[in-house]
């Protein structure tokens, strides 16, 4: 895969940062808009990823399924209030084909609960496919590969 120019890197890097900041600010309704209409989002574990197991923790194919997830977490699912803080590693972005990019970046996500307790909730890597549509980057696919097989308490918000 080919290296990319600094301007493209900067644009995609800003997109990745914006995604994380929006989730950290609790703006989950806007989350599906970071994806192409037929975009894929998956959270799985390193163990599943390496074994080739298709079922991870969360899988959305298309913005419709993403909207359902967001509606469910807002109105249906029951859980204690919690806020998240993403810490992103510097992404490695390559051009996979003209106008399509592959990106890999490490992340960690800290969770703070209602009682004030903060802890490391997840760590792992993003494996992304990014396309530029109408001048704006969008995820064609975002795979979140968690290092741990074990989730503390539950997982309800996308990472």
């Amino acid at each position, binding site marked *: 895969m080919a290296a990319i120019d600094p301007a493209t890197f900067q644009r995609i890097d800003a997109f990745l940062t914006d995604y994380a900041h929006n989730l950290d600010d609790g703006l989950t309704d806007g989350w599906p808009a970071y994806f192409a209409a037929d975009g894929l989002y998956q*959270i*799985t*574990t390193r*163990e*599943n990823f390496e*074994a080739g*197991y*298709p*079922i*991870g*923790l*969360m*899988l*959305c*194919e*298309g*913005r*419709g*399924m*993403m*909207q*359902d*997830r967001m*509606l*469910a977490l807002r*109105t*249906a*699912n*029951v*859980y*204690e209030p919690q806020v998240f803080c993403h810490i992103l590693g510097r992404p490695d972005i390559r051009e996979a084909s003209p106008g399509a990019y592959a990106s890999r970046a490490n992340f960690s996500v800290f969770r703070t609960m209602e009682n004030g307790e903060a802890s490391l909730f997840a760590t792992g890597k993003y494996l992304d496919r990014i396309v530029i549509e109408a001048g704006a980057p969008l995820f064609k696919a975002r795979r979140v590969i968690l290092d741990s*097989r*074990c*989730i*503390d*308490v*539950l*997982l*309800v918000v996308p990472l």
Partner: protein
Amino acid sequence: MTQTTVAALSEPLAWPEGGVARVPFRVFSDAEIYALEQEKIFKGPIWNFLCMEVDVAKPGDVRTTWVGETPVVVTHDQDGKLHAMINRCAHKGALVCLKQKENRESLTCVYHAWNYSLDGQLQTVAFRNGLKGKGGMPEDFDASKHRLQPLRVATFCGLVFGTFSEETEPLDQYLGAPMSKFLDRNLGRPLKILGVHSQMIHNNWKLYAENVRDSYHATLLHTFYTTFKVNRLDMDGGIILSDKKWHHISYTKRATLQAEKEYETVHSGQYESQLAGPQLLNAWDEFDDGITHSIQTVFPTLVVHFTLNSLAVRYFVPRGVDKTELYWVFLGYERDTEAQSQMRVMQGNLTGAAGLVSLEDGCINEFVQRGTATSPEAKAFIEMGGKVAESNESSRATEASVRGFWHGYRSIMGFH
């Protein structure tokens, strides 16, 4: 096998009046009771789920697991036989196997290189005869007297079970005919693993054992079930308890829904929505008995669920008096077509640590733990559907299976 002597509780537990319809909160937070359970239940007359047969499918396959808090290793020897042993070297007691899964010709403790065959027999001891004629084991050292402590092993429908107790009845009797038949319905063909993960829940293991037997809560707490008519109590369904009441089956027939007004007044009935991504619930009828959702338990810590086409084994491992690790093993059949596999994968969104119909169970039991921890003298009131533990094939508005769990628990623990 030596049976560890269990010290009596420093303060005896008197079960409250009301029998299995009451549960003293003390049992969820008392460290002495928790320690007693390790001996009486997990090392007692029960079959513990160890792993899936597909985890140890080939000769040389080794899989680590737990029975209660005790680390255990399951092996598949060169003759095709399965063995289970405490994962503890006969020398100094170090863990012998460290990885979850591997394939090995024999087992070697990393500490002093004591080597065991796959059936747990001690084969070689490093420097047994010393070096240059000096050191080494005494003359009377007998390798055959030092082995990995074995468990009895039995398998059924792709599930591997183990027991420490000589008193445990044969597995088919332990399960009983109705339980075996339903396990065979769901698991009785070549299986393949589609995904695995776990979640740490911050509650005593028995709260999850209750929770997964509780057909009363399912459609109230788990809104998604109700809204999308995956599982409701106004569908035909029932509860079947095993002869000794330890195990249970809860089943639902989705096509029989006759909407009841009662659901209009509860939170779970308020969430009106059409799915924007309806492929989530694409499903096919796999069986001709009309059952579209079932939860089955095998005492103490095994669960098999089959929701639409989402099939999984769950098992939970106590990690302390107020901590439990819940494992999810998502399954399909070897015979599945690509389209069928795809439906199981999509429906994987329903359950697990992020499951649309199950994620609440990650926190609800913790809420009970936190609510009860400071009130050991108070008790739960469990009378929905009656005061006894009996099968009920006409209604799941009952806590009969929860009472069945306590029936088994009390008899094994000797809490009268």
